[in-house]
């Protein structure tokens, strides 16, 4: 780790002040990505502004029929929240599959979505559930938020304060993940959700960033069942290929995970 200054923000306003004052500063929430990067000297911020403890951006509640989760809420709290389990059980199940117990007890929703790791789990939920990202400046629709590999619509100094997830109809939402054998991240994760007026299928891990599988969405709009996508095949072009797996393998996983998500809902 390079030498840096640590600032524990007293409030959101305080954090904004520090971020504005130090152009080379970075925000710290759970630190599950930032701390390893710092330790390996892959990041060299002048300051880390710790917003992980701010009560004003923590917590889980139902607001306007949507599930609102504060940005600094830990994965463990989402996974074990009775409210989340009642309103969107598949979201609680997703949170319970992130990393390991240590990671789930430190990592936060806002941190994950702000970082937008192409293999993170939460972006699939945000995109499939058509969630809204609330920041200190504005609200951003999921479709406008994710911009590819580690890139988002967030502007310098913009801080995620929470995310609102509309409730799918009749609990028709499921996430199926194929964990990377080494890291445990999503080699491919597919979140299928039926909002009543629209079906969304979001894919994480397989490509350079989370994306919607629109062919599957169209097929499922006709009939919400695994059979509907049986004839589809995801194209390998543009998907990730590395030492662990080919793009063709990931393309196959997209379909298999989507099918299994549907099967888990009884939509065979």
């Amino acid at each position, binding site marked *: *780790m*390079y030498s840096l200054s640590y600032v524990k923000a007293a409030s959101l306003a305080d954090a904004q002040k520090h971020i504005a004052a130090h152009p080379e500063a970075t925000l710290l929430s759970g630190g599950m990505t930032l701390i390893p990067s710092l330790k390996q000297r892959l990041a060299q911020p002048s300051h880390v502004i710790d917003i992980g403890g701010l009560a004003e951006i923590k917590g889980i509640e139902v607001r306007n029929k949507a599930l609102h989760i504060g940005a600094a809420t830990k994965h463990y709290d989402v996974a074990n929240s009775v409210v989340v389990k009642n309103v969107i059980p598949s979201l609680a199940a997703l949170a319970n599959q992130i990393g390991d117990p240590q990671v789930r007890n430190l990592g936060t929703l806002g941190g994950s979505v702000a970082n937008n790791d192409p293999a993170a789990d939460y972006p699939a939920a945000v995109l499939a559930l058509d969630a809204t990202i609330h920041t200190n400046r504005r609200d951003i629709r999921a479709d406008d938020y994710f911009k590819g590999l580690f890139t988002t619509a967030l502007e310098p100094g913009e801080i995620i304060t929470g995310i609102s997830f509309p409730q799918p109809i009749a609990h028709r939402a499921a996430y199926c993940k*194929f964990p990377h*054998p*080494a890291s445990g991240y999503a080699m491919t994760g597919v979140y299928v959700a039926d909002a009543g007026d629209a079906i969304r299928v979001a894919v994480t891990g397989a490509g350079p960033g989370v994306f919607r599988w629109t062919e599957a969405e169209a097929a499922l709009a006709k009939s919400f069942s695994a059979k509907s996508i049986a004839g589809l095949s995801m194209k390998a072009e543009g998907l990730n290929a590395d030492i662990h*797996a*080919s793009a*063709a393998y990931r393309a196959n996983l997209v379909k298999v995970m989507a099918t299994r998500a549907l099967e888990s809902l009884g939509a065979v």
Partner: protein
Amino acid sequence: MQTHAAQHEFTGRREDRRLVTGRGKYTDDWNLPGQLHAVFVRADRAHAILRAVKTDAAMKHPGVVAVVTSRDIAAEGWKNPGTMVSYPGRGKPLQIPHHSMLATERVRYVGEEIAMVVAQTAAVARDAAELVEVDYEDLPVAVDVEAAMKPGAAQLYPDIVNNVCFDYDYGNEAATAQAFKAAHHITRLRAESQRVSGNPMELRGAIAAHDRASDSFDLYVPHQGMTIMRGGLIGIMGLTPDKLRIRAIDVGGGFGPRSGIYAEFPVLLWAAKKLGRPIKWQSTRNEIFMTEFPGRALVLNGELALDRDGKFLAIRMQWTCDQGAYLSGAGPFINTLNAAMTITGCYTIPVAYGRHQLVLTNTVPTTAYRGAGRPDMAYIVERLVDQAATETGIDRIELRRRNAVPKAAFPYKTPCNNVEYDSGDYATLLNEAMSKCDWAGFPARRAASAAKGKLRGIGMGLFVEPAGGGMAPKDQVTLKIDEGGEIVLHAVVQSHGQSHETVYPEIVAQELGIAPERITLAVDDHAGAGMLIGNGVVGSRSTMAHGAAFKVGAIEMIKKGNELAAKKLEAAPEDIEFKDGTYSVKGTDRRVTLLALAKDHTGPGPNPLDSMGEMPLARTFPSGAHVAEVEIDPQTGVTRVLSYVAVDDAGRIINHTIVEGQIHGGIMQGAGQVFGEHVMYDATTGQLLTGSFMDYFMPRAGLLPEIACYERSVPSPTNPLGVKGVGEAGTSGALGTLMNAVVDALRPAGINHFDMPATPARVWEALQAAKQ
């Protein structure tokens, strides 16, 4: 689980209270007054000429005390680290490339040590290390081992032609060729045993200290036996054994890599003397991935000749062994003689021949890794047997039965290198494994899996491996009475998970007929153990060697006590008998306990009961029959291990739970290689691609189901305990067993060969290719 260990009482290991309550003391837990901190500058490319190493900016950095490069140590005239090879190859001996510890005119792998920065704190040293400027002139790289030995490949050393540093052969080449000519059937297989990383939980580190008054050194370091580490370092630095104390209490995993003499150590020792202050160095996990000696890295070509009845006529091996850029001490040995000892596996094969070529590449040097050549040999032999069964149509179990060395044939002399298997009963191992796993019921289980769209497979590995041996001619131990009258044991061993503190006292207690709690194994006691002759904790040897020596020493102590008891009880020595820790005069109630005698004779000098035990070098041949059943999901390529049965002959068992633990660990380490572990380099740049746990698969507990272990012990005649080695047997069994199961699952899909690792992606790709 009705395994054997469950039938025996286990009261825990003595070392566990310390270890599980965070009171273990590892290298990083030591700190010496006035210590400085070191960080190493490493090569960021695989093959390049070093044009300049500029240290001025680093030297000027506040807090930096010294920056050491090869220029500073050149005058010392350090020798090459030794290797364990003392035998010739085909035509010429092993060529050992010079390793100067800090790179001189060239770097040959990513991570090679170039300079050491010493500073007041580790953080300062790390900052300053980035200020060391290295000018390189890139050279072409040799990474793939088979490509590296072809003419035209990049050459690492001008005098090592085609990068082949050793061309070792064994057995009878002509007779084997003759047998192959006469064979009814020949099975051939090329299989890879990919490079894997040891990755002990404890990072590599050291503290070097120099005592000016005695001109001697202390090195605190995680190691696998003080004589290995000391012998290696004094050989490099030209010291005598009394000038270097190797220090450790707890070592967090060894697995072979920690038998290595790493370049950092002599440089740290040298600088500690030069600067007159202790120097501490602690690696990062990234440095472990980059520079800790990995294992395997072999291409195994095997051929098996059979007659019409499926009798094995001959076996032939041709191995290509990736040694990395320099030679580790163990690397050249494990890939030649160590592996060659079991070329015929568990089978009666009249002739055999093997040729193993050791090749240098622009990668980190390889070394012993749990099994150290034996799992690879067991793997290729057992894969060949299954393949031969498929090709000839003879049932794979029947084929093993027809060829297994019969119990009556022991001691069994193999056709190569005068190797003699001490004892065994392979037919019983095989039969037990078959019955415990319900082999007969497999077809129905396979059909049930097929109905769910899954591919089910079952595989057996019947294996034997050598344990023991060593570089020192014998192993000495001492049993001493301390000032409180308790028994203290000394040996040159260093536990890195072997439970020495529990087992050695149990061995002595059993012989002396007293409670093991009255006996303690001394740890980090250089005065007590430092000058004993003995080998390290390698080759699954420490119970059969040091453990047996403790038994010999205990017998000696009883004999010495007999004289003392006779005096005390006023009787003739021949009238004294010893039972359950007590001497008594035959036919009377006059008695004295051994411990009371010990207490009587405590004083300023040595106790007359102090004893030494010795064992000459010996080898045992532990064996086993393992069976695994797997189920493959063809949609994802995921292989699930459904069951694993291990029937092992580890000789007589001292502590059943600890032996079972060793087998579990060995099997899991094998499963890691089978299902995912793989150190990968970029073939064109030599850059390491698996530099962290984000990319390097380590097995997790969920990889295997509960392992069912059974003991079928045939005592070894080579040592008074009757024990055999067990630390590596699980790994030797697991590779062939699990891969035979995987291939068995894949055969119905038209796949008859598959190389490790069986990752989901690789299995899926193979299934897709088979559909074409």
